[in-house]
């Protein structure tokens, strides 16, 4: 007889260990065990059969791999935890004996130092691994950087988070590696590409984070601990890779004055921040003697102008035009049915040149921190803002003639509804009455910056003017798949070959139906020609249309059919109405004693039917072809194809609906313009 095997000596019972057992084995407290697991990346596991894995009757047990826990026994951090525990006991004893100074000395000299360096190296063997896991780290750290300090979240932690985050942002700014950004209702999404890795993170809006009791702060603090270490190492590596010194110089005073990004000074081989330096010296001069009279200021300005320092605005413009020539090739599909390849994102050079020639001024009501970061990451060197938003601006003066763009987000108010501006003190920056426009600069709403960044080119600023109804802010990550409706592209680019014409014909038929009632004789029209013209116009963007010609034709149309316009405007093209009309016509014909089928609808109907017949025939042929091909496929492949076709049809139907809606809208607009 074979040897009787004892229960619980092999298999799942051996491979898994419950949390309580693990804590006992490691001889640490449960909170320490949690921290250790977070640091080392040991996660709870799930045995296939819980009953076989443990002998406990409680269903809520958490399991770990026994081997993981066994490996934790080697961990140097474990010894540190034990040291801490021992020291805490000594301190408690000293305190109990009333030897407070002893306790203080013990704490000061013998407290162990917890370093996570080796853990970082162990968990992320290569730098790319670390970059891949940066999403979570950045999201958490940016979140903690905006939290208000409380007893759960000490201000030191927040300051540390802010520092590492700003340092990371500085790297992105210098290398222009920010790619996309999206204003969502939760916060602002950013995407950067570092060494070929796409990193996405979410930054909350300012001052909206509530600290509530559902979150375990001890655990979050452990994560923050780990991630700050990780990010500082990553920053170190990134900085040294571009020849910068890490950590960068940090000016505590200007940070206290709300300078945020500007509180850091990068030092290294290839850092040139000439315009910044000039401005800062100037600002300092203004700060030191605030009583400087206006004349002196004017003189200084004149001197600066004479020295040619303000010509910096023009020079990078030329550079930008030069740089834009060497762009990456885009993947153009060779054939219309070919797969659309993911287009390459713009290169760092492109990104760096987007806002380079401009000088921005951020008004008080616009979010300064994200705007400054994005503008600077996309090449803008000169960003100014109101003095209340903190230090570090290129200029605090709203009337500065060098400003080319101003970002405003206030509603247009009627003149006189605002209180008069208090007279500016002598020497202070001149106040501008809110709502006034300074000539020579472009006023835009903040969304313009985001949309420009996501499109990779400068968009029309007049669409984003103050008080204008903004175009929708689209997510840069939602790529329209083939056949789906894309609001960004024009109608002509995405519709099927015959779609526009067919739609046009439908309209025509209805139009003619309507006209039938008043003047049934006047229906000699070049339908095909006309419809073609219309479809071209519907596309709007197709090159090569002679405006004059089409206009003249349109005029002709107008003369011929005054009813078209009405129809288009009213947009009453419901089916039941058409049916009603039909019935009406029949009745009329009957009353006149004519056979109805010989009516004037005949012609257009025939044409329409001919066209649709053609389309239908083509479609049938295609279907047959497909059916034949399907027969040859294996069952599995056929299933897959069917699945694909089904989903494709669904999206294309939806898209067609949306397109028809848009076509109607555009037509309505055109009619309105006429």
């Amino acid at each position: 007889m074979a040897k009787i095997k004892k229960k619980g000596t092999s298999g799942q019972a051996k491979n898994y260990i419950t949390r309580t057992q693990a804590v006992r084995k490691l001889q640490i407290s449960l909170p320490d065990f949690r921290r250790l697991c977070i640091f080392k990346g040991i996660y709870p596991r799930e045995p296939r059969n819980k009953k076989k894995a443990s002998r406990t009757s409680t269903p809520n047990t958490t399991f770990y791999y026994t081997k993981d826990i066994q490996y934790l026994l080697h961990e140097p951090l474990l010894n540190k935890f034990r040291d801490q525990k021992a020291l805490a006991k000594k301190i408690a004893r000293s305190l109990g004996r009333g030897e407070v100074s002893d306790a203080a000395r013990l704490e000061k000299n013998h407290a162990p130092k917890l370093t996570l360096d080796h853990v970082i190296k162990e968990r992320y063997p290569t730098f790319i691994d670390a970059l891949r896991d940066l999403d979570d780290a950045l999201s958490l750290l940016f979140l903690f950087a905006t939290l208000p300090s409380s007893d759960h979240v000490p201000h030191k932690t927040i300051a540390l988070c802010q520092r590492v985050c700003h340092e990371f942002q500085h790297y992105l700014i210098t290398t222009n590696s920010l790619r996309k950004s999206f204003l969502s209702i939760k916060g602002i999404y950013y995407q950067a590409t570092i060494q070929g890795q796409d990193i996405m993170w979410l930054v909350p809006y300012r001052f909206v984070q509530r600290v509530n009791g559902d979150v375990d702060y001890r655990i979050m603090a452990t994560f923050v601990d780990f991630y700050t270490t990780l990010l500082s190492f990553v920053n170190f590596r990134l900085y040294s890779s571009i020849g910068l010194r890490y950590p960068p110089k940090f000016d505590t005073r200007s940070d206290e004055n709300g300078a945020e990004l500007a509180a850091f000074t990068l030092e290294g081989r290839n850092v040139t921040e000439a315009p910044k330096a000039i401005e800062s010296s100037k600002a300092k001069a203004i700060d030191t003697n605030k009583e400087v009279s206006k004349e002196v200021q004017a003189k200084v300005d004149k001197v600066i102008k004479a020295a040619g320092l303000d010509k910096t605005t023009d020079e990078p413009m030329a550079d930008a035009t030069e740089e834009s020539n060497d762009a990456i090739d885009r993947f153009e599909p060779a054939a219309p049915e070919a797969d659309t390849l993911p287009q390459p994102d713009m290169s760092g050079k492109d990104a760096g040149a987007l806002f380079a020639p401009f000088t921005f001024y951020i008004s008080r009501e616009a979010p300064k921190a994200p705007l400054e970061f994005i503008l600077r990451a996309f090449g803008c060197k000169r960003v100014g803002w109101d003095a209340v938003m903190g230090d570090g601006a290129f200029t605090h003066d709203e009337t500065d003639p060098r400003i080319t763009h101003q970002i405003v987000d206030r509603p247009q108010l009627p003149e006189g509804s605002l209180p008069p501006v208090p007279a500016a003190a002598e020497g202070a920056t001149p106040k501008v009455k809110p709502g006034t426009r300074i000539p020579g600069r472009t006023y835009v709403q903040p969304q313009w910056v985001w949309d420009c960044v996501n499109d990779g080119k400068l968009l029309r600023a007049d669409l984003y003017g103050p008080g204008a109804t903004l175009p929708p802010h689209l997510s840069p990550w939602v790529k329209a798949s083939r056949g789906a409706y894309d609001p960004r592209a024009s109608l002509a680019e995405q519709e099927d070959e015959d779609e526009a014409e067919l739609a046009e014909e439908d309209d025509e038929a209805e139009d003619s139906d309507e006209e039938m009632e008043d003047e049934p004789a006047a229906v000699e029209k070049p339908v095909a020609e006309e419809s073609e013209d219309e479809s071209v116009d519907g596309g709007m963007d197709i090159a090569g249309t002679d405006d004059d010609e089409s206009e003249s034709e349109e005029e002709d149309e107008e003369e011929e059919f005054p009813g078209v316009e009405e129809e288009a405007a009213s947009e009453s093209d419901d089916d039941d109405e058409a049916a009603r009309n039909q019935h009406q016509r029949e009745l009329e014909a009957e009353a006149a004693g004519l056979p109805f089928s010989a009516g004037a609808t005949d012609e257009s109907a025939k044409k329409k039917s001919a066209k649709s017949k053609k389309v239908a025939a083509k479609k049938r042929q295609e279907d047959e072809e497909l059916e034949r091909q399907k027969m040859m496929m294996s069952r599995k492949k056929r299933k897959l194809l069917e699945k694909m076709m089904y989903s494709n049809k669904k999206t294309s139907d939806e898209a067609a609906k949306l397109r028809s809606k848009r076509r109607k809208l555009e037509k309505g607009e055109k009619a309105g313009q006429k």
Partner: protein
Amino acid sequence: MSTSVDAPQQFKQPSRKGKKAWRKNVDVTEVQEGLRQLKDAEIQGGLISEKPSEELFILDTTGDQQVRQSIAKKHKTLKADEIIAQRSAIPALDGRKRMNSNITDGVIEPKTKKHKNDWVSRKDYLRLKQVAKEANPISKKGNNELHDPWADDAEEPTVYEDPRFDFLVKPKAKVAPETLKHAPISLAANGKPIPAVRMPHAGTSYNPVFEDWDKLLQEHGEQAVEAEKKRLEEELKEQERQRLIAEAQNNDGEVKSDDESAWEGFESEYEKPEWLNKKRPERKTKTQRNKIKRRKEAERLAKWEEQKAKKDAQAERIVELTELAKQKELERANESDADDSEEGDETTLRRKPFGGKLPPPEKPLELVLPDELQDSLRLLKPEGNLLDDRFRTLIVQGKLESRKPITQARKAKKKITEKWMSKDFKVPGF
């Protein structure tokens, strides 16, 4: 040369009248004297004031030895003075007594304890107590040694191998187990890993395209309606349950006296509750049994017939049905096709989370309702709580077990006992 700096004047000039006041009688003796002295100097070898200083002076760097000796003989210094005279250029320490200072002379105790150099302030004391309680003393000497952990040149420390001990078994290297590399178990219903930051839905833009937003709204609306329906159902059930309980408690077999009639003046008879009136089941006769049997058989037959009819009807329109089934299957396949992507859906979680007593927290609604839809960034009211969101993400990624933070620690149970000391007495006489 003369010392006077006045203008040249005549000889004594008591009056300005007469020949004596004439210019030619001006007194120039001083000038003449000066000229004579100049001549004398030139005779003696040149004017001293015009000579360079090198010709006039020499630098005596050695000093006169004799003079020194004579002076040393005259004033002989003490050895102590000599030693004391060797002063440092650095000023001496200030020997003044300070009233409020931590510095003491080391002999006299300071007046207050605060001046002791090992004094611990109240704040520090409280902190120490806290540290001792939480057992987490950490060195405050910042660990700011930054380096590049991924650098190539990080060489392994070479271990010296002593040839004398080469017979010893070398210690095994610590090898991380394979299981350490396993990804955490995602809580998504489809079991796919959940990303740390999900791609935002197009409808969550602050200024969305209407269609996207509407789609999102519909989706969430349906979910909310479902949840509300469920809640109402639960509520009804709960009410029913409560009602039943209350009923059961009310008539717990007791006889209710007819209060109403008692008040009206006549008393009803002794009333039994309904359930007491119930008769006990009587024994069935054979015929009854047979009857029941027959009826059951008939019922069974009818059921079977019905089923058969249904089946036949189905068989008739089999083509149609298969088509329908196909459609349904496609639909389902399409549904599952939606999560063909690598990412798991964080909104639909699997039914049973592993470990822990609590389910992961609900995902709050992240949607701008129609009345709050704004097209200006300034007016945007942000939705959701990112802190909760991060915490939840960690849980549903499977990195943490879901748990509620302990806000108030459980206290030890108190057991109250009576002391018998005062009662366990003995009367001495007995």
